[in-house]
Structure formats: structure tokens, C-alpha cells
């Protein structure tokens, strides 16, 4: 088991958002969390990434507890997080942003290898390497956010709303690159509003409603589930 979230309760300040959320992810799996707006999907990812301290419950990564150790230490354990707002360093060049992504790596040769890998993966970024991140288009910034997360050579990639604010065609491109990463052996936990598309590409899924996991199972089965079809797909 790569990641194990046990009975997680978390929230912002006094407002509790997550209630007894449990998630398990194995190495190499492509797992998604789907749910309506405000269900707590982003809060789940932020808590796993260490940006929010849980009220109770446990997050185990490779068997070690990582809840409450702080965001920067979670990254060092091997979890990379791409947030919805992307949190890029807007006044740094693409190259510098990627270098920052490799902040936790000490091996210069490894940083170079990761850089080549990311530039091969997103050739668009290589063309723009000296451009400031803040001046790029939404799709390019999304690529940069994923590229920066990949720079740290993570074992688990958390992706929050990759389609947010993107044109449908660009969304397809981003989904294709995530697919390719899974085929290369990376484990991904994806959070998305675009339920049809997400359930079509992922292996397994969790349905989060009002801060509680209401359904879980194979993505193909979830896509046929009457409840899911009624709530999300409107049929």
C-alpha cells in the first residue's frame, strides 16, 4: 500500500469539511476522487499534501505517518502536489520554476536528468524556457505546474482540477499527459469535476459528497452506477 488515509477528519479553522474519509492507493494505480462542488475534494488533497493539519485520523505513506509533519516534509517523502491555483512562481522563468521543483534534490546529475525528462514530456515548455511563468497561457501554466511537480521525482502525484479554466481541447492534452505518466509507472491521485472524462480514464474512483465517501469502486462500474449517473451525469 503506497498511501493509506484512515478515518480522516479535517477542515479550515473551526469549519470541519472532511468526515471519516478513508482512501487506499497501491503502487502504479490511477485513482480519482469525484464529487460536486464544495464536497471537500481539494481539502482531501491539501490534507494529504500536508498543507492542512487534520483534526483526527491518519495519513500513512509507505507505512509512515505523514499527517501534521508540514508541507515541505511531505514533499521530501515523495509526494508531489499540483494545486488548482497551481501556485507557480509567476515572476520566475520556466527554467527557474522547474529548478525550484527540484529543490529537495541534492544530486546535480539527477536534477539535469529530470529537467531533460520534463522538457521531453512537455516540448512546449522547452520552447518557453526563459519566459516568465506569469506571462504564459493557462494551458502552458498547467503543464508547468505538472512539470514542476515531476521535477522532484515523486512516487505519488496529487493533481487537483487539471481541467479548471482550460479549453476542452487543452483539457484533453492534459489528460493525455497524465495517462502517459501512469503508463510510465507513476501513481496518480486525481481530483476532477469533469466526471465523465475522469471515470473514463482512471482505474478506481471514490465519490465524495458533503465531506463523506459515499461510493467507491472500479471507475467503469462507478460510471454505470445509477446514483452517480443521476447526481453527476443528469441521466
Amino acid at each position, binding site marked *: 500500500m503506497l498511501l493509506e488515509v484512515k478515518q480522516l477528519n479535517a477542515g479550515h479553522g473551526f469549519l470541519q469539511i472532511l468526515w471519516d474519509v478513508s482512501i487506499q492507493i497501491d503502487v502504479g494505480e490511477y485513482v480519482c476522487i469525484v464529487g460536486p462542488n464544495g464536497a471537500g475534494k481539494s481539502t482531501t488533497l491539501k490534507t494529504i*499534501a*500536508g*498543507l492542512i493539519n487534520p483534526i483526527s485520523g491518519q495519513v500513512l505513506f509507505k507505512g509512515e505517518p505523514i499527517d501534521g509533519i*508540514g*508541507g*515541505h*516534509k511531505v*514533499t*521530501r517523502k515523495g509526494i*508531489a*502536489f499540483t*494545486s488548482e*491555483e*497551481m*501556485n*507557480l*512562481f*509567476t*515572476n*520566475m522563468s520556466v527554467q*527557474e520554476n522547474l*529548478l*525550484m*521543483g527540484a*529543490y*529537495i534534490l541534492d544530486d546535480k546529475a539527477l536534477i539535469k536528468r529530470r529537467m531533460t525528462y520534463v522538457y521531453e514530456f512537455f516540448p512546449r515548455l522547452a520552447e518557453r524556457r526563459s519566459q516568465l511563468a*506569469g506571462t504564459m497561457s493557462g494551458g502552458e501554466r498547467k503543464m508547468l505546474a505538472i512539470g*514542476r*511537480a515531476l521535477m*522532484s521525482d515523486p512516487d505519488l502525484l496529487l493533481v487537483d482540477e487539471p481541467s479548471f479554466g482550460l479549453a476542452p481541447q487543452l483539457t484533453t492534452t492534459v489528460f493525455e499527459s497524465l495517462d502517459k505518466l501512469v503508463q510510465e509507472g507513476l501513481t496518480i491521485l486525481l481530483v476532477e469535476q469533469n466526471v465523465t472524462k475522469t471515470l473514463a480514464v482512471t482505474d478506481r474512483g471514490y465519490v465524495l459528497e458533503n465531506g463523506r465517501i459515499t461510493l467507491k469502486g472500479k471507475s467503469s462500474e462507478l460510471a454505470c452506477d445509477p446514483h452517480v449517473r443521476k447526481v453527476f451525469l443528469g441521466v
Partner: protein
Amino acid sequence: MPERFLSWLKSAAGITILLTIFLAAYATIDRGPYILVNTAITGGMLALVAIGLALLLGVMNVASFVHGEYFMIGTLAAYYVFTPLNAYLTENPNPFLTNLAPLIAILSAAVVGAAAGALTEVLVFAPMRRRSRENWVMNSFLLTVGLAVVLINAHLLIFGADFKGIVRYWPGRPFTIMDVFISRDRFFAFLISIVVIIAFWLFMKMTRTGRAIRAVSQDETGSLMVGINLTGILIFTMALGCSLAAVAGASLLFLYPSYPTVGLEALYMAWFIVILVGLGNIIGALTGGFMVALLKVLTVEYIGSGWDFVVPTALIIIVLIFKPSGIFGSEVRGALEK
């Protein structure tokens, strides 16, 4: 490139820099090259204090009104290191050590300043940040004002109110540049400010920690996500900013003897600069240092020495009315490149 250069010339920053160069050239022809020399020396030191202030604003979001007290701590540290060294050297002359002693004093001031800055972050800002980040800008500002009062009175209590000064750092005849006599102390003060500024620039651009400081100034959550230890970076930034002010204080000990409120003038001048160029902008603080220095020198030269606070203040009021984000200001956030 020429087009970009032209459009830059037409921006507020370009116009101001051109105007500054023109003014400097005119005054130099009119009154003599000592205007330039004085501007360079004052500007270098003002820039050091202002860069530290801009760093704290850009990275930690702290509007520091205690920054002048690190200048004061710098003068104090340099005085207590240099005076015994100098006394020893008068009894046992040693030309090599005589030239080295001022550097030792300034270096120890840098270390003491950095330690004071780090302590301030650990003991004052960190506990407040843990409590709540609500209303942070106002609360941290008030905290710095209080801290300034405490430090000034601590100086008064422990070291007394008298002037603790030195006659000179470097003995020997003054240098002559462009028919102007420059005392060795002034010359070396300028040299130190230039070296420190260049070193600081390279550090911010080339090193991993420097990049991390810039990253924190641009996006705090993003820097946590890439694995930057925020606590460490904040302590380091505070130490760095305060150390720059201490170096400025120590280098100018021959001009400003150490006394409780010696840092106030440096603080006000640094704030003039930072408001003039835009909050938290380091490149701007560097150029602004020399602009305000020129303004001061010209005011003293043409209007009278009592007016050197009035003219910059008036200018700031005008800037705040017409371009509230400062002449280098823009919407983008970041400590080194705004």
C-alpha cells in the same frame, strides 16, 4: 530589443532614471564633481539599508519600523570591536593589522546584526505567526514599532546616552579622484557597499537558498509544495536583511557615532526610498538609494542643509498622489523582480 528599451524609457522608472542622470550631470558641471562623489557614497549606504527593508517587505510582508535599530546595533558592535583593537594597535603598531581591523569590526557587526535579526524572527514574529495570520500587516507593523522603542531604550539603559564614536577607521592621506579629496573611510565605505550589493545580487540569483527566498516572496504555498522549509527561510531572510543594515551602520561609524537613536535617520531614508520605488522591490531599492542620495546632496548644496528631509518627503507625497504603487511598482509580486 530597441523597442523594449524605448518603451522602458517611457515608463515611470525610465523617465525618473533619465531625470536623475540629467540632474546629476547638470549639478556636476555647475558645482563640481564632489557632488557625484558624495552621492555615490551616501547612495551606496542608503541602498544597503533600503534593500534590507525591501527584502523584509517582499518576503515576510513585514513593514519594519525597527530596521534602523539594526543599523544602531551595527554601529554598536563595530564600536566595541574596533575601539579595543585600535587601542592595542596604537601600542603595538602593525601596518597589516591596522588595515584589517576596520574590516574585522564591520564583519563582526554583520554577524551580530544577523544574529539579532534571526532572534527577532524566532522570538517575536514566529510566535505571532503561529497564533494567527489575520491582520498580519498591521499587527507586525505595530510590533516593529514597539520593538524599536524597546531596543532604543535598551541601548540607553545598557550603554548610556553618550556618543560612542571613533575618529577614523583607516589612517592615511585621503585619495584624490577628479580633483576631489575623499577620505579613506568614505572611499572604503563606498567600496564595501558596492561589494556587498553585488554579492547579495549574485546570492539571490545564483544560489539555491537565494532562489528559495525569491520563491517564498512570490508564492508561499507554492514554496511549501516544492519542499522549502518556510520557517528556515524566514529566519534566514530576517537575518540577511538585518545584517545589511548592520553593515551600513558599522561602515558609517566614523560619520555617525553610536547613540540610541542613530538608526532613525537611516530608517526614514530607507522608507523614503522604499515608498518612492514601490514596496518590496529590491532592484528599485538599489536605484532608489542613489536617487534619494542625489536628492539629499542637491538639496544641501542648493537650498540648505536643514531642508534635506523636506524635499524627499515632498517628493514622496507627489509620488503617492500620482503613482501610489511607486515609480517601479507594478501588480506583480516578488522580492527581486517586481
